[in-house]
């Protein structure tokens, strides 16, 4: 009984901004179900007070002085842009309200 359903896959693809075809939804549902099922054991494996590790090598307090460094030129900044105008990146209309 997997948590991964086609609706969930569609929802996740939406969150991740990737269009998916129906064929992909079914394929991903099947594959991801298998993968997630194979992971069922890990929640049980960490019962008890095990802290999470998000950084493999413990370090702290790494900072940069508040000193200006050279920026890219406007031209360099826009050099990879698929579309630009007036020194800015141009994109199609945005659906959501700001």
């Amino acid at each position: 009984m997997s948590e991964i359903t086609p609706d969930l896959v569609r929802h996740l693809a939406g969150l991740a901004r990737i269009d998916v075809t129906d064929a992909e939804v079914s394929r991903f549902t099947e594959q991801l179900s298998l993968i997630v099922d194979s992971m069922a054991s890990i929640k049980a494996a960490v019962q008890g007070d095990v802290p999470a590790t998000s950084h493999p090598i413990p370090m702290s307090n790494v900072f940069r002085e508040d000193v200006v460094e050279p920026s890219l030129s406007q031209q360099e900044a826009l050099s990879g842009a698929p579309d630009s105008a007036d020194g800015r990146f141009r994109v199609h209309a945005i659906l959501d309200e700001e």
Partner: protein
Amino acid sequence: MAKAELMDYAKALEMFEVVIGLEVHVELNTKTKMFCGCANEFGSEPNTNVCPICLGLPGSLPAVNKRAVESAISIGLALGCDIAPTGRFARKNYFYPDLAKNFQTSQYDEPIAFDGSIDVEVPSGNSYTVNIERAHMEEDAGKLTHVGGSTGRIQGAEYSLVDYNRAGVPLIEIVTKPVYGTGSEAPELAAAYVRTIREIVKALNVSDARMERGNVRCDANVSLRLHGAEKLGTRTETKNVNSLRSIERTVRYEIQRQAAILAKGGTITQETRHWHEDKGITSSGRPKSDADDYRYFPEPDLVPVQPSHDLIETLRAALPEKPADRRKRLQAEWSFADLEFRDVVNAGLLDQIEEAVAAGSSPQAARKWYTGEIARLANAEDKDISELAVTPAHVAELQTLVDSGKLNDRLAREVLTYVLAGEGTPGAIVAARGLEVVNDDGALIAAIDAALASQPDVIDAIREGRMQAAGAVIGAVMKAMKGSADAARVRELLIQKANQ
């Protein structure tokens, strides 16, 4: 947008208890951005203060601005917060064209400061304790300009242009705990709270705190519940309310709007709303949905921030006086009565008067100008005093001209209007327009004689002790001199004449 129904304010408060929560974003005035060495500068050519990091180019990595961290700690301390022994950055994931990486590097469950409180005074003189949930570090997004369509707003735009100069600028987000028990003063408290935050960050010199430039932004959360109810009502969040006056109006509006709905048996939609200054209403934005699943996780490219005890104590020792203490001191220094001082505080004029005094004005004179003529002119243009072109130095100069007799009150007010129009300093305007008070007794006497010619009885009246009669002549002289005479001198000369 259909106009929402609003319940009468007093009735709304009778029926419901108001709970508010405020999120304020403060833009820091560091030289560089939060995670890269690009200049933190307003008004540059688009996309000229950018680099691989703030542009979110593949392969780039963030590096934390030390001064931003220190500023965050100072803000936390000034708000009475605990400073986290270990704070971590987190990624807040969502897609938007002004977000270069399509995630914001922020802080989630390990903010740098938490659990503080500050006292905020409202116009009535009441003081409320606002509890601070947390203050955390994050980065700003770029700037979008919407092109095409009729209003320059997002709806109906053909396309949008993105400038990432602002992307990555350090922000401190300050979140209050829900604020209860403010009754009808919730709107005033909200505005006063934000004003207090502004005062604090300006005094700390960590932000320019100019609301009109977006240095300080406020999101206002409002919910209602029946008196005595335990559960909190559903709240709405009105985002980016960017002036003190708008904050007050927004909160008041939401109270009235929500009360009308609830009274009819309806329910409040939990959603983000927008304040429209021109129409004086809030409108619905996106409803809160699954799309707001930000999938926070600890930022793997940055390591934890563990401020040392020494650093914290050094910053604590450098804290400027609390706003409340500063006010007590200023009121004493200026010898203002309670009501006078409160007027000044409520109108947000402390800084201006302080600066005018520093520039040479007497405190009372500065107060009279600001709470009198300048406030009147601001209201007439429906603007905040801070938006007018007159500076405290101008006010001091103006008062000096009056004190020295060069200007009378009427002329001074005239000069003020020219200052507001941007013509320059009072002194320059007086010179350019030749507006000095006429001190030439000869000219005054001539004018008096001319006035008396048509009102000969006045001299007799004065001799008989009916001083009020002088008024007509003085008025006529002032009119003839186009207001540039000193009314007191005219009166003196008139009386002298009568006694001759």
